[in-house]
């Protein structure tokens, strides 16, 4: 075990996978000499060479489309989109191509490939370096979409993603990169895609979250315990698609109250699906209305600190709603 931040955990896992398997290659903007703008691929060019560490032209549709071609012909590409905000030009390649290759060929072809993208706000990223994109891609059958939030999960799920025979969109919350630290095993290990995890056990309400919000919820849950002796069960979604509703529903059935917290624009966000499924599956187990906390429905957070703060759900507000719900 070594204590690592999220960047190091991802760097190391990717490094080990590249070392273990020549089929694994990385491609993206600035992944070479620069080692990635967030330093995920630092040192890779020197160690693995230009053929396996490809600085691509500024062309996201090609990054994904070329990765598809590589995956069709025996490689395991790990593509990086510099910021999740810039994945949109590749929307068609992801939705129409990557997600459908296996299905449309009736199982004849498949695509072992990963697309990594740093997402999320709280980093002075303004309108185009702060976005949440998981709801768009969660809605695409044929794509797996993961949102690990700890160094352990990030390392373990990246390994699973690379080993997965199907395309995985691997979303890394930028704000957690250096903020969140944790123990990571030194030996290879995996965390399965498609499983949520109870990150904190509790009795009085269930809080469902992922990304940076998970950490704010854990913080608020701790405070709720200390200040009021109320215990919140915090479930980390971890995988947006396929969504592990079993774990979420089990928790809600236990606590009878549920709240979902996400940073993305609230309307039609991922939290809608979670709340809707709870409402369908265990409506009569509930002791309180369901609660969603999401970002406001504006394009994204502003650059001005005042506007960024006004956008992001914060621990204080989450805490307030948790207390209210627990006491309902």
């Amino acid at each position, binding site marked *: 075990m070594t204590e690592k931040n999220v960047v190091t955990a991802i760097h190391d896992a990717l490094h080990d996978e590249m070392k273990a398997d020549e089929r694994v290659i990385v491609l993206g903007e600035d992944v070479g000499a620069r080692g990635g703008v967030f330093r995920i691929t630092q040192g890779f060019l020197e160690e693995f060479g230009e053929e396996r560490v490809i600085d691509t032209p500024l062309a996201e549709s090609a990054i994904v489309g070329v990765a598809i*071609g590589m995956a069709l012909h025996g490689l395991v590409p790990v593509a990086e989109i510099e910021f999740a905000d810039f994945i949109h030009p590749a929307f068609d390649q992801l939705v129409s191509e990557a997600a459908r290759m296996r299905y449309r060929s009736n199982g004849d072809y498949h695509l072992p490939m990963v697309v990594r993208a740093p997402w999320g706000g709280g980093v002075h990223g303004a309108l185009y370096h702060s976005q949440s994109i998981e709801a768009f891609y969660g809605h695409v059958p044929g794509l797996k979409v993961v949102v690990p939030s700890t160094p352990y999960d990030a390392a373990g799920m990246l390994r699973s993603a690379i080993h997965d025979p199907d395309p995985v969109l691997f979303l890394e919350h930028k704000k957690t990169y250096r903020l969140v630290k944790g123990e990571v095993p030194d030996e290879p290990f995996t965390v399965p895609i498609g499983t949520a995890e109870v990150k904190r056990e509790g009795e009085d309400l269930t809080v469902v979250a992922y990304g940076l919000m998970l950490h704010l919820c854990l913080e608020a849950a701790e405070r709720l315990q200390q200040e009021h002796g109320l215990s919140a069960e915090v479930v980390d979604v971890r995988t947006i698609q396929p969504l592990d509703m079993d774990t979420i529903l089990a928790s809600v059935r236990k606590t009878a109250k549920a709240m979902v917290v996400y940073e993305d624009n609230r309307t039609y966000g991922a939290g809608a699906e979670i709340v809707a499924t709870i409402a369908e599956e265990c409506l009569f187990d509930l002791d309180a209305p369901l609660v969603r906390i999401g970002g406001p429905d504006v394009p994204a957070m502003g650059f001005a600190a005042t506007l960024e703060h006004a956008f992001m759900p914060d621990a204080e507000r989450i805490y307030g709603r948790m207390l209210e719900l627990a006491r309902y």
Partner: protein
Amino acid sequence: MATRLSDTSHEALGLSGDDLLSMYRTMVTARLCDEAAFRLNRQGKAPFVVPVSGHEGCQVGTAWALERGRDIWLPYYRDVAVVLVAGMTPKDIFLGLFAKADDPSSGGRQMPSHWGSRRLSIISHSSPIGTQLPHAAGIGYAVKYRKEDAVVACWFGEGATSEGDWHEGLNFAGIHRLPVVFVCENNHYAISVAQTKQMAVENVADRAAGYGFPGVIMDGNDVLACCRVMKEAVERARAGEGPTLIEAKTYRFQPHTSDDDDRTYRTREEVERARHNDPLIRFAGYLKEHGLIDDPGLQAVQAELKDEIDRQIDEAWNAPDPDPSTLTRHLFAEP
């Protein structure tokens, strides 16, 4: 004299008389598949047909320069004749037309003429135009990375050249000098939109210079010219010299698909004029000139192939439909 010149040309290509006859049979097969498909469409047995007629020359000519079992094919929907060269049978094509469970491309999931077969190294494609260009580049990269000597060939209409993906795919292939041949079947229309509304240039091939590799224009109705140009491009690719963009000037004789009405956008005279350049007629003329076949022989080929296709159509028609329960299969790897 003409004879000798032509002689040189096909022999210089390393093609025997049998090869030529075989090419011709493939072209006729494609044309007959079209005719049968439209007949079935009128009978209500085939809701959607994508015709190839007019493109057989450039398709067979270019595809012939590749090797089955070695090279990789990325055709587009118009490429009936390309997939025949790649190894599909008329039955395969009609299994797709009828959306049968055994349709090798998609098990009846995709529209007809959306080709794919792992066994034959035909890469599955979708309907959105132009998306296969980056795939071709990626496959080319993998071929080079794995030090194989395969060549990747990617076909598309001139309409596809307007898409961003087209640009991005060619640019990537150029940067890494990948073993990819890009083949444009320029029939001067994207459905109804004439070439002048698609681009301000006469030749798609002129764009190759902007990607750092050669662009070559050829008469798409001259099957041997297409084969020669393609062979050169394939050799360049195999020798590690990078991609080529080749452009076949051709024409589509039928409407865009069975859903189209081309009388709204082109005159019957224009279509008639184009038929004078029918690649089948021209190639038949070449074969006769070279004494490889005569008129009765041509008729016999036609009749023989028609019978064979009809037989295969019957087989395809009688094959089972996809089981509705398979709708949810093959989303991800199955345990």
